[in-house]
């Protein structure tokens, strides 16, 4: 028997890892540097965008999702999706409380 969704195993080489490491370090420096520039509302947005970018890099390459099956990608997506459901649906309550007097 072979599992129906078995996926080719991919070995990621040190070159890719090194590249990602450099990218992550550069992004870390950027996010710290950018924090010192006052951009108002964009500060947290940029900080989070860089954070997301870094996380995606780690997930895709360090955690090999780039080389995994679609089921795995969906699974990872589902996790973050549920997290977003928790955040957005809860905040929807808190934000819209100020819209009315109730």
């Amino acid at each position, binding site marked *: 028997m072979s599992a129906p969704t078995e996926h080719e195993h991919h070995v990621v080489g040190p070159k890719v890892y090194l590249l990602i490491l450099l990218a992550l370090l550069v992004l870390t420096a950027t996010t710290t540097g950018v924090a010192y520039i006052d951009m108002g509302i964009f500060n947290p947005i940029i900080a989070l965008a860089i954070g997301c970018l870094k996380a995606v890099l780690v997930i895709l390459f360090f955690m090999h999702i780039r080389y995994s099956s679609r089921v795995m990608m969906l699974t990872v997506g589902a996790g973050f999706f549920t997290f977003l459901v928790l955040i957005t649906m809860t905040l*929807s309550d808190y934000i819209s409380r100020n819209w009315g007097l109730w």
Partner: protein
Amino acid sequence: MSTIVTLPNQQDAQLPKLSYLNSEYGIKSWLLTGDHKRIAMLYLFSITFFFFIGGAFAGLIRLELLTPLPDLVASDTYNKLFTMHGVIMIFLFLVPSVPATVGNFVIPIMVGAKDLAFPKINLLSWYLYIAGACFLVAALLNGGVDTGWTFTTPLSTHYVNTHVITAAMGVFIAGFSSIFTGLNFIVTIHRMRCPGMTWFRLPLFCWSNYAASILMVLGTPVLAITLVLVMLERTVGIGVFDPTKGGDPLLFQHLFWFYSHPAVYIMILPGMGVISEVISTFSRKRVFGYTAVAFSSVAIAVFGFFVWAHHMFIMGVSNYSALVFSLLTMLVAVPSAIKIFNWAATLYKGSLTFETPMLYAFGFMGLFTIGGLTGVFLGSLGMDIHLTETYFIVAHFHFVMVGGMLMAYLAGVHFWWPKMTGRMYPESMSQLSAVTTFIGFILTFFPQFIVGYLGMPRRYHAYPPEFQVLNVLSTAGATVLGIGYVLPMLYMPWSLKYGKIAGSNPWQATGLEWQIQSPPLTENFIDIPIMDHEAYDYDWLEHNTAHEVTAVG
């Protein structure tokens, strides 16, 4: 296509010489087992034990409510009774009931695997369950806890001095047991299916357990962190849920219900899976609209994450939010309706017999329909104002959880009992208990809808005298219900020794689990099977049986 199924002659059935039950002996071989079937048995024993503990509390609650006066127990004792009833029944019985016993036993066999993907983690989850249960029992023995099973802040964090932390710890640990069970199921159903077992050849029991597992894996951690925050709030006073320190007690409600609403789907979905199996088997008919039933399970799981705030409509969530959550609640009711009608349609042109599991399944359909429809009452914003926090809620919840889930659990245990033990339960006795349960249930909980609309609040120790008649009815019903539950406790152990020998497929069901010996071998299959037919293919079964007979003859 037509199917004639003749039940096998059980006279000459014999117990197999070797099975998972006698492959090894001794306490150690059970406590350190990796075999999913043995772990299922461990769960069966522990869950039954806690079911009767929780049931005893329920009995005391009903006894107290026989009279309007607070005369049987003191108020705080009463509060502890219903708290422990809720905590034990929900976290130690309902959440693990079908998945951890029946599911653990049959899912690997249904998908054609030798075991669950992670046998050790499976065993670990039983130990976590026991550890959590120990904490809860410790809380109980030390004097109990009286926060209600919802651990509502700031009551639980600042205003009670019972054993909240011990109890919360117990729930926290039991939660991880549930996470690991769910994780194991998802991985098993994804990765361990035998050749030819495509997603749409899976029995619907696997689909519904898969859906419930998603909820377990993604929902339970939120409960865990919420309980951690409650424990910290109580010990250190962190202020996250404390309005005097700037925290918001409603945040607790959000986080708690984010798990605890999906939790009711965790409880009911596996039960729906059982009903699909039972209805199909005893109508000798493929489940009507297989894909619709399968996808409705997944739909319930997905929508289940979007509706939690309907527990908070009167608690001061924003009205806009309430609108959205009410709308989504209406949507989540639809898949349940689809399931009910598909099961009913499965009966059409079947060849029905009414063995005990089928009776329980009918009970499930009736009671769950009432439970589900009254859920629509509560999901409707305006109606919810009057009905919430009254006995209407209590009745609704029990119709879904006891009328629905417990019926399904009993259906499942009876249905797979021959497979688990190799012996039949006594049929007429168990039919009697099924009918008793149904009557007792209606008598217990239907009056609670009425007394709820009259306005009797839940968790009340004493109540105005005009509610007494309905409460007396309810208590009387609880007695009948109790008898209905004790009966299986008597005849099931009896059948272990004296029951008729079942043979491998007493119901002539189609699942892979019925094609192997009962009780099964330790690794289920000698050779990994190859699935070459659809689920619920009774023609295949008939052909197969005929073939076997010819081969033997």
